[in-house]
């Protein structure tokens, strides 16, 4: 114990203030970079909303069919290889199905009659809201 303290002291004896600053700054940089780069998720997600509630959020890389029960009935949302689309909808006009695949963050598909919306979420939102 005493020995290790002494050896630590001997190391610090040769450190100049500038060295210490370098050590501190590099540790700060590492901490910061770790936090900003490591913790971000690279996979985009799709957020499914039903009425005024967030129904679910799914990773886009897992292929799956999601069934959502809206006021008109069951809609099927197809997720595959980073894309998402309305595959089936009980609504009359099928505008939502005709919208096709959504691929980029910020894209939305809305089924007004059945009150279901899809929004692609990425690391950065290209815009806050959509004018249509």
């Amino acid at each position, binding site marked *: 114990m005493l020995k290790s303290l002494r050896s630590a002291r001997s190391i610090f004896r040769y450190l100049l203030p500038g060295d210490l600053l370098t*050590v501190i700054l590099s540790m700060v940089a590492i901490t910061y970079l770790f936090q900003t780069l490591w913790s971000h998720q690279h996979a985009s997600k799709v957020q499914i909303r039903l009425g005024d509630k967030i129904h679910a959020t799914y990773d886009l890389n897992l292929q799956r069919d999601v069934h959502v029960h809206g006021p008109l009935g069951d809609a099927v949302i197809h997720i595959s290889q980073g894309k998402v689309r309305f595959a089936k909808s009980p*609504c009359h006009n099928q505008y939502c199905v005709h919208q096709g695949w959504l691929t*980029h963050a910020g894209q*939305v598909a809305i089924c007004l009659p059945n009150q279901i*919306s899809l929004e692609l979420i990425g690391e950065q939102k290209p815009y*806050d*809201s*959509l*004018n*249509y």
Partner: protein
Amino acid sequence: MRKGFAGLLLIAIIASVLFSLRAYNKEPLYHSQSYVFGTLVDISIYGESEQRAKSLSNQVLQDFQRLNNQLHAWKPVNNNQPSELGALNAAFAAGKQPIAISPQLADMLVNTTALSVKSHGMFNPAIGHLIGTWGFQRDEFSAVVINDEKIKALVKSKPRMTDIVITNNTVYSNNPNVKLDLGGYAKGYALDMAAHYLRQQKVKNALINIGGNIIAIGQHGNKPWRVGIQHPRKPAAIATLDLADGWAIGTSGDYQRYFILNGKRYCHIIDPRNGYPVQHTQAVTVLIPPQPGAGVLSDVASKPIFIAPAADKAKAAANIGIQYFMVIAQQPISQRSNGQQPNAEQSNILVSPALAKKLDWLDSDVKNNSHVKVLTLR
């Protein structure tokens, strides 16, 4: 030893500050979505506690619901009570007997009449019978049997806003064929109402989107609110722009309410001069600088520009006082000014110079394809 300890302490402090900054960075943004006016209402509030933001946006949604019940063009409030607008339409059809209306509705009628006159009748909320004939006064739009004779007769009956006589909150129509449909006005009115309410409640930053019509209050943290403009034929935005405090934006498109019959698209925007849905235009976007009634203008002003033929669109915009607009036409727009014949290489996108400066194009076809050019007015 002391020095080293101090150094470690310093590192620990800096690291913890960074961690807390990161936690703080989780922005104070509240976002809600709801369905009113037969469309999606999307409210973002920045910089308020979640609880307060939630209660404010719930209040706004309740106000919207009340307005929707009051102004609904075809749905009664319940089985034995029509909407206020429904009762008014029934009175117009019955004859010239004046009926009492709320001061709020009276104000709206004065306002819509002024806008209708300014647009030379291209914005005409009195053509409810025509809109109904085309099947757009329903929750879902299916193809209708087109009755050319009936349409001709309805156009000939000349329903106009100036047929309506308003005195001291009582109103009657000189023309029994007037049937009001405020579908091109109510959402804009609701935007102004919500913006007014939130400002009154000292909300500094909010973005309200009613079915694509958007008004901004303040900004999103340290940067302006940013909005995307939907591509009329792709499930993506064509461009983005910053919406500064008090600005509003609105788009009229043929892709939200329409039906297809024999391969032809019939959209909900009807030319009051001939009674038929407009087929030469896919979308018109207008951007409105801060002013009283900015929300209303963002809703109303796109209609006359949408309806006007290509050559008259700039004039239609000027008539209603619009400087910032974009037209996406069905066919390439020819610019006659430089004497060229229209050809396939010409763009179907027309942007006013004022708006062109504000847009950031996202669509790769517009950005990369030299055949698609953004034309500007002079």
